């Protein structure tokens, strides 16, 4: 610590790490997985964010620095670590640096630990000191209770903290973190980010933090490197890059981020993409104001030993005509389970689900209900049959419901796919050759073939890159406007909810915590849990609805 203070004094610092002309090529891969001439410096104790969408090369960069790329990767370039120059092209030269000089943590915390080994043993392999010290440093308050547990007995956040403790245990001067919080809930993420910031200051440890989330970068990092298709398109001080981006790509990226300041507006497209397709007029508004109503719905799951767990506990919720209702909650909150009762994928043990005043009884299902409510899943890859062509999958609902002649069905499916901006060339492809965004458009087109009144989107944009997510969000807004479809939008991402929804309901552990208009709920949350949740959202500087102070370095 004392040394750190001295070295951060007046004397101009020498960088801890300099990367010069890093390039990576894969002998079997495509151009997208190739890096070209990446160069940057990292000062001791500095936190550098590397941000980019999938395939931008950010993870490859980290693995090249730590020498963890597979054998068939061709690496070029030079690295100066602590004044010593090393060639990046030979992983063997880099191996001695791992551990005491640099350490790395990864995205999936559960599988970072050996399932057959206790936490204590993980740390014992790395250090002779008391393992509890490092667990405490990683933010585990009562380390001794955890020492003899296994990975499957821990939560995701705890696993990631154990992984951090393992990384810290040889006192590295550089920590490389590859999307370490992406798989975690937002409140857990906030805690880990705070801890990393503090660790960097305490130990004068530099951090390279890789993420797709610009807001996280703003919260945590001093400097940022924006990567796109294997190249650095922009770099500099975090505030400068995020508030006054120079590169067009960075500008596009920031514009695509959903935010309350432009609530209800299109992010990247002009309204009316759907205009080219003449939809039938929205069904005339008849009956009550309530379209989909959950009345004291209770759902139980059976455990392997036969006992029951309440996944949803007497939740009542109403979706009005033409509205977008956001349903927020962390993993295990029961939000998906609640929504699944509307389509018969989960059966309530008590309570009713009403559609347009009619009770949905899935023991005696009616085909009309299947047409009125459509469900869009999180993972667009999984939601499409890998072995069938896109066109036949989009047409499938019409086949199942025997609507129109075969040629009409084809025509309708084609028209909807064009309306959701899928090119004709893709129609006869199989899902594997489509991008994530294209797949999600296909599932939306499929859902629209039956002219539903209600669309349930279950984490439908969570797996997508920001720029693609923005297009899908724009499309959903178009659907509401053009077709008057009501949307139940389920997400763990409050920024997206804040941007898209008219009203929001918050769930936690199977119960409804709070419900209200988006603006009111985000500005003046009543429940403690909602307040915590909102405080934990990483936000960008000029877009913040509620001004949250940047996380300050604290012990």
């Amino acid at each position: 610590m004392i040394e750190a203070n001295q070295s951060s004094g007046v004397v101009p610092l020498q960088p801890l790490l300099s990367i010069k002309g890093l390039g990576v090529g894969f002998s079997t891969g495509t151009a997208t997985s190739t890096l070209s001439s990446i160069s940057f410096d990292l000062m001791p104790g500095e936190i550098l964010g590397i941000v980019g969408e999938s395939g931008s090369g950010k993870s490859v960069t980290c693995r090249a620095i730590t020498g963890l790329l597979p054998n068939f990767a061709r690496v070029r370039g030079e690295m100066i670590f602590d004044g010593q120059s090393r060639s990046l092209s030979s992983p063997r030269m880099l191996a001695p640096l791992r551990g005491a000089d640099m350490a790395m943590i990864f995205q999936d915390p559960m599988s970072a630990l050996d399932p057959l080994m206790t936490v204590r043993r993980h740390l014992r392999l790395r250090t002779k000191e008391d393992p509890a010290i490092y667990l405490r440093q990683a933010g585990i308050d009562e380390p001794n209770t955890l020492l003899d547990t296994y990975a499957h007995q821990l939560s995701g956040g705890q696993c990631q903290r154990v992984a951090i403790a393992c990384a810290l245990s040889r006192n590295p001067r550089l920590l490389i973190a590859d999307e370490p919080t992406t798989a975690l809930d937002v409140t857990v993420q906030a805690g880990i980010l705070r801890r990393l910031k503090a660790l960097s200051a305490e130990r004068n440890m530099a951090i390279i933090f890789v993420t797709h989330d610009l807001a996280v970068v703003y919260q945590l990092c001093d400097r940022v490197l924006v990567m796109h298709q294997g190249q650095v398109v922009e770099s500099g001080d975090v505030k400068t890059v995020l508030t006054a981006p120079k590169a067009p790509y960075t500008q596009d990226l920031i514009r695509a981020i959903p935010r309350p300041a432009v609530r209800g507006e299109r992010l990247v497209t002009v309204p009316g993409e759907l205009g080219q397709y003449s939809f039938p007029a929205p069904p005339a508004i008849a009956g009550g104001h309530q379209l989909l109503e959950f009345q004291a719905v209770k759902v139980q799951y059976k455990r392997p030993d036969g006992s029951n767990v309440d996944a949803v506990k007497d939740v009542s919720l109403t979706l009005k005509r033409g509205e977008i209702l956001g349903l927020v909650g962390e993993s295990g909150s029961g939000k998906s389970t609640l929504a699944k009762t509307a389509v018969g994928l989960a059966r309530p043990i008590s309570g009713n689900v009403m559609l347009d005043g009619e009770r949905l009884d899935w023991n005696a299902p009616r085909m009309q209900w299947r047409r009125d409510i459509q469900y869009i899943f999180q993972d667009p890859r999984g939601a499409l049959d890998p072995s069938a062509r896109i066109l036949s999958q989009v047409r499938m609902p019409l086949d199942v419901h025997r609507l129109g002649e075969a040629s009409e069905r084809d025509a309708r499916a084609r028209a909807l796919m064009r309306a959701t901006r899928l090119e004709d060339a893709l129609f006869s492809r199989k899902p594997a050759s489509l991008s994530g965004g294209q797949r999600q458009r296909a599932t939306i087109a499929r859902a629209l073939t039956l002219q539903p009144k209600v669309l349930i989107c279950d984490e439908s944009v969570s797996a997508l890159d920001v720029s693609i997510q923005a297009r899908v969000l724009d499309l959903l807004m178009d659907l509401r406007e053009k077709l008057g479809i009501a949307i139940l939008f389920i997400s763990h991402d409050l920024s997206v909810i804040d941007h898209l929804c008219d009203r929001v309901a918050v769930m936690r552990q199977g119960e409804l915590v709070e419900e209200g208009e988006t603006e009111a709920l985000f500005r003046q949350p009543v429940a403690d849990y909602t307040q915590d949740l909102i405080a934990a959202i990483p936000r960008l500087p000029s877009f913040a609805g509620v001004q949250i102070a940047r996380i300050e370095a604290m012990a």
Partner: protein
Amino acid sequence: MNWLLLRSGRAILTLLLLLTFTFFTLAASGDPALQKFSPDVDLATIAAFREKWGLNEPIWKQFLIYLERLAHFDFGMSYRTGRPALEVVLDRVPVTLSLAIPSIVLSIVIGIPLGFYAAMNKGRLADRITILVAVMGLAIPPFLLGIFLMYVFSIWLGWLPPSGYVNWTSYIMPVASISAVYAAIFARFTRSAMVEVMSHPMIETAKASGLATGLVQRVHVLPNVLLPLVTITALEFGNVVTFAAVIENLFSWPGAGTLLIEAVAGRDYAVVEAVLLLTGSTMILANFLTDLSYGLIDPRIRDYRRAYRRSPDQLPSPEGAA
């Protein structure tokens, strides 16, 4: 409910299924009365015999009588030898085991290290040659290998005794025929289990925090490969024994295998049934013990089993990401 109870129930059910199978195949193998007596015996004797053995009872009662008989280790008479079938079989078992045990030990000792070596050099020449040899090994039945060995070493070169038990060199060809094939199976299996473990993120994590490659292999890879290896060893043991039977026949060894083939060819069903029940119940027991050992190796399985006995609230939610 207790996991152990459930698992034992399953083992007993499998055993019952085996007994039902042998009972019905026994019934289908012909009328015991007609087998026992010559055609000129008078009908009264046959009727008395039927009465005594419960052959006039309803089928379920016959099954119970059958079970009771087995409980007294009465496996019926071998009509070819006129001795109790169990005795006939047990006489021959040591010879078979003396062939099967060295064979499986040798397969493991050769196959598993070979699989390790191939996985460590994944994609390189050594790996590809190992896979090639393993695939070929799988495609060669032990008896064919035995014939080729016999031709080369006994007939052509005249080095080894071609058949029967002469001295310890008699073991060489039979054991080699079985082990070559099973070493290939073990090598292939070990390699794919290793490759799977080595692609697990924990390996990259361990390397990233500076653990030496040798240490990573010792503490992470080996224990995680152990579970699938224990499973396959238990499963393949039964197959090794049966292939030992075929090899015995080829090399004219006086083992249970030769006996079994003779019994099948001579329709001596009591002997076949005794062999089937002996190997079957041994395998059921072996599988049961293997399953028990999982709990010792893997804490996840241990916890899952414990959960059967624990109060429900301590279980993690089955919901995953709701």
